[in-house]
């Protein structure tokens, strides 16, 4: 492999985007007006790609983890096996993982997604399983006794009651993936990471901080959205009296 990390240039290389302001020429920490002027052309497209990368990773990881959790409920060996497998994937340093995957599936978005999905599995699997195991057994017994089929019990009783830990898992996974996905730009996945790598190369601080800041804001926004979603979906959780 001949891919090496781009090394920051000794002197700042100022991009020639139209007329540069004094702030940009002097390469101050963060040039707000440049950021605003260039947001829609330079920052918005990678931001959207980043959202897409994250959504696909969590969106694919969720059903895989869910199926695995259902299997793990019935076969104890599967719980151990899948946990080890997911933990193995999770503990790989992101960059090393990406580089290894490139040798198998090439430099592209697909490779990045495989790695990102792998990172969601441990978190989602654990939380879904914990959630399902935490469903009060008396609610399940009542469901059976009233003539719910197994499927109805799962969908109408167990899943809604397991929702809080499951959503907690989705929140951790989402925030993690938003962060890890910046590294995926290294193997050509695009997203906010491509701006960060670019800024490392040019030394242009406004681009670096702008892209990094957007990733942080994206993580906060996604987390807040999921919290709101959970509140809306679990109205009973806030209306219980302490007994």
């Amino acid at each position, binding site marked *: 492999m001949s891919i090496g990390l781009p090394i920051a240039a000794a002197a700042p290389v100022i991009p020639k985007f139209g007329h540069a302001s004094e702030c940009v020429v002097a390469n101050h920490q963060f040039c707000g007006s440049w950021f605003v002027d260039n947001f829609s052309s330079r920052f918005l497209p990678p931001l959207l790609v980043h959202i897409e990368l994250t959504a696909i990773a969590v969106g694919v990881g969720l059903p895989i983890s869910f199926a695995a959790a259902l299997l793990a409920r019935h076969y104890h060996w599967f719980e151990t096996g899948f946990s080890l497998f997911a933990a193995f994937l999770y503990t790989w340093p992101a960059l090393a993982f990406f580089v290894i995957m490139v040798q198998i599936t090439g430099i592209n978005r697909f490779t990045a997604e495989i790695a990102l999905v792998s990172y969601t599995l441990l978190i989602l699997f654990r939380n879904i399983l914990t959630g399902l195991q935490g469903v009060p057994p008396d609610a399940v*017994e*009542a*469901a*059976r*006794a009233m*003539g719910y089929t197994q499927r109805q019990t799962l969908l109408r009783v167990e899943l*809604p009651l397991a929702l809080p830990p499951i959503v907690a898992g989705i929140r951790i996974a989402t925030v993690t993936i938003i962060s890890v996905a910046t590294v995926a730009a290294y193997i050509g996945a695009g997203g906010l990471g491509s701006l960060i790598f670019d800024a490392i190369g040019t030394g242009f601080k406004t681009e670096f901080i702008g892209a990094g800041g957007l990733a942080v804001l994206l993580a906060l926004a996604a987390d807040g959205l999921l919290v709101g979603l959970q509140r809306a979906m679990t109205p009973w959780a806030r*209306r219980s009296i302490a007994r």
Partner: protein
Amino acid sequence: MTGSGHSSTCAEIAFADATKQYEGRSQLAVDHLRFAIPPGEICVLIGPSGCGKTTALKMVNRLIAITSGDITIDGQSIQGLEVTQLRRRIGYVFQQIGLFPHMTVQDNIGTVPRLLGWPKQRIRERAGELLELVGLDPATDLRRYPGEFSGGQQQRIGVARAMAVDPPIMLMDEPFGAIDPITRDRLQDDFLRLHREVRKTIIFVTHDIDEAIKMGDRIAIMRDGRLLQLGTADEILARPVDEFVADFVGADRGLKRLRVRTLKDIELEPAGPGDADDRLSVPITSTLRDVLSLMLSEGRGSLPVYEQDPAHPVGIVRLETITATLSPGSKVLSA
């Protein structure tokens, strides 16, 4: 009661050598249980822990599979039905209640109606009707969540949910076991009143002999998976079949018998005009236990008994009459 369209008649349940053996155990959990519960009866299963009473109950709606033998409902084997269909026709109330915390009271009560495809409007009406029946307020309580209610209220909702489609049979597994004594007493009274209105065949499991005496039309005493004695409370208290049953019902079974009998059950002596006593007259509906208690606390050997008006007694009850009802030779009441 309701125009539910379902059979609101009660059904006969018959155990026909019903047996349960858990895998890897040599002892039978339920050992050739054979008896029938006539329609509309509350039959209490009682015995020490591990006697098989709960197992026997759960075999009826196949929460526990029968190993051999059979159970029939109105002559039809429970094995011949689709298990979900069977369960939707049998109300189930248990100690842990098992309300769905994520559903409103209305949706909890509407569980089985929804499964049976009732229209929404009808489910809402039925839920309101049932909530009122168990003593809660439909106007405020239908939209609330189970977590907002006390244990006693939750069990009322549990009972309402079990009766949603007016099932002919109800299985109750220590339904009031986790509830404080005062609330339990009220729930028992309310449930008996409810049962008089909405007659159902009920199997009621408890380990509390006092609850069994109060709730059961008949009591089945079990031990080691076998049925030891089946009879009315009075029969069992008067003539326990063996040492174990005698021990189980308690050394004070004489006093307990006095509680299941009222002044209506014994012969009174005729009262004369001079026997009227406003202060000490007892209503004819009093239990013999209460009458005896009053005699002891007042130091009287006899008390006037009235039906309507304390000033006009219909007879006199004597201490000897009460003690005579407990003698071995006295006749036993049948429910």
